[in-house]
């Protein structure tokens, strides 16, 4: 670094690239360190205790977190709950995607709706996206009780908000040119949607739906703990009974399901995109 600075003659008032870079990095480092200290104080986080707990947890997991014979005998029940959670995630995502697609159309440029309608669509989508799914879950518990529909609607609202925004962006990006061409031939809005927007944006939409299914399986585990349904509830049950070997089998089955879905959707994505 020093050699290059000596060799290259440069004007006095201009600081070297390396000096400014070093200064930026130092400032960024100090900023992050400050945030770290403030956060650690605010949450009573013990840095050393945190580091120590990792090997402790690994040892504990190796000793207790292994399925035993009793756990394996519960496998059919665990799998039935797992399939319930998986089916809820798929059903939620499919329903939310269908609703979000038609809801997002007035928000895109392709349907040539008035700007204020597009704005309202975006605001409603932002509302559903920004209210966390656990708020929906807690709210729905009041009327639905500990029911599978509680989790269904909680995930539905969050997924609907997320997918509406994504679909608006995707449709505007993907089908702009073919929509323009169709309007030029005198097609109506409805014709444009069915012959232009849907065919051109379908691969992207399917890819997003697959992604949301993956995400929703993880979220539904958590929502299941709050609403006492599905695999999340089962884990919570075994965990609170301190039946850790059964709980570990639940975790293993979730891992296998999530990885299988990830591999499958990556394969599908490769073919359709």
């Amino acid at each position, binding site marked *: 670094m020093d050699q290059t600075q000596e060799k290259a003659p440069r004007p006095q008032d201009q600081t070297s690239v390396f000096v400014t870079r070093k200064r930026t990095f130092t400032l960024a480092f100090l900023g992050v360190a400050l945030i770290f200290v403030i956060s650690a104080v605010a*949450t009573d*986080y*013990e840095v050393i205790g945190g580091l120590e707990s990792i090997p402790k947890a690994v040892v504990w997991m190796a000793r207790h*977190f292994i399925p035993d014979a009793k756990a394996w005998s519960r496998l059919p029940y665990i799998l039935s709950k797992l399939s319930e959670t998986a089916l809820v995630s798929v059903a939620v995502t499919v329903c939310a995607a269908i609703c979000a697609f038609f809801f997002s159309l007035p928000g895109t440029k392709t349907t040539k709706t008035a700007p204020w309608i597009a704005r309202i669509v975006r605001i409603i989508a932002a509302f559903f996206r920004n209210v966390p799914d656990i708020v929906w879950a807690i*709210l729905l518990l*009041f009327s639905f009780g500990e029911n599978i529909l509680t989790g269904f609607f909680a995930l539905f609202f969050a997924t609907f908000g997320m997918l509406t925004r994504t679909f608006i962006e995707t449709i505007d990006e993907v089908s702009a040119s073919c929509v323009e061409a169709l309007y030029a031939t005198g097609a109506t809005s409805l014709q444009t949607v069915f012959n232009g927007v849907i065919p051109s944006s379908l691969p992207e939409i399917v890819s997003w739906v*697959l992604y949301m299914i993956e995400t929703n399986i*993880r979220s539904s585990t958590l929502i299941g703990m*709050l609403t006492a349904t599905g695999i999340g509830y089962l884990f919570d049950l075994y965990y609170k009974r301190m039946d850790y070997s059964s709980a570990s089998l639940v975790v293993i089955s979730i891992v296998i399901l999530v990885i299988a879905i990830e591999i499958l959707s990556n394969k599908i994505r490769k073919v359709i995109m």
Partner: protein
Amino acid sequence: MSELDIAGQPPLSLEISQYIRKTRGGKIKTATKSRSDHAIKITIFVLLTLTIYGFATFNYKNVDIAKALAGTWSNIKVLFGQPKLTYGTWGGSLKALFVTFSLGALATIFGAIIAFFGSLLCAKNIANSFVANITKSFVAFIRAVPTILWVLIFTVAAGLGSVAAVIGLTFHSAGYLIKAYAESIEEMDEGTIEALKASGASFWQIVFQAILPSSISRMTAWTFLRFEINFTNALAVGAAAGVGGIGFDLYMAGNHYFDLRELGFITYIVVAAVILLEMIATKIKATVR
């Protein structure tokens, strides 16, 4: 180039009809069948079948859906229309919000540090493929376990508190950021690394003089995006595992005090925080690109 190619070939036939495919009835085919269309159709069919099968087999426990939906609607009106604090205070809520922010920030910082070194083992253009594959499988495993389960597992070993929450959140952040960082590194110009290698630079010199400067902006954008996700996750973990923060307040208001107005007030605070974070993230993305 193209002129040369054409010059060597026989003159193009202008008979356009031979390029148009027709159906048996003589109509012009407008849709082309491809593998991708086929795959999309099968995927949609399978997803719809699973949805219908799911709705048919769910255990609804005889809930009156119409009545429950009507009840929910009136609850929503109370929640968003009449927010009011009864059990908590303004200061307490803001402090809890700050705790949730801090949990998210700690997890993001730890995750980013782990992910930086992890991504060096993962990125195709600098790592060897054997190590990269092992790292990727390990990361896939870590990401497959839901955050809340990591938190609960660590709660047993480290006790209920911020340590378990932060470690649980960190696992996922690291997994997510390793993938994102590795992609940022893979996008950088191949020539830079090669030039440095040729000049005899060591591995760490390449990392700090070429890789970090050229991908730091993308990495920053990803990190902030992850901070947004970590904030919502910290909220959820606070509610489900009881580790504190505003997520726990949400849980207490809803499932303990059964107070919709209190729940509404806290929800407004949370939503305001989420929107603020999203605005900052959009601004960071705009300056980075």
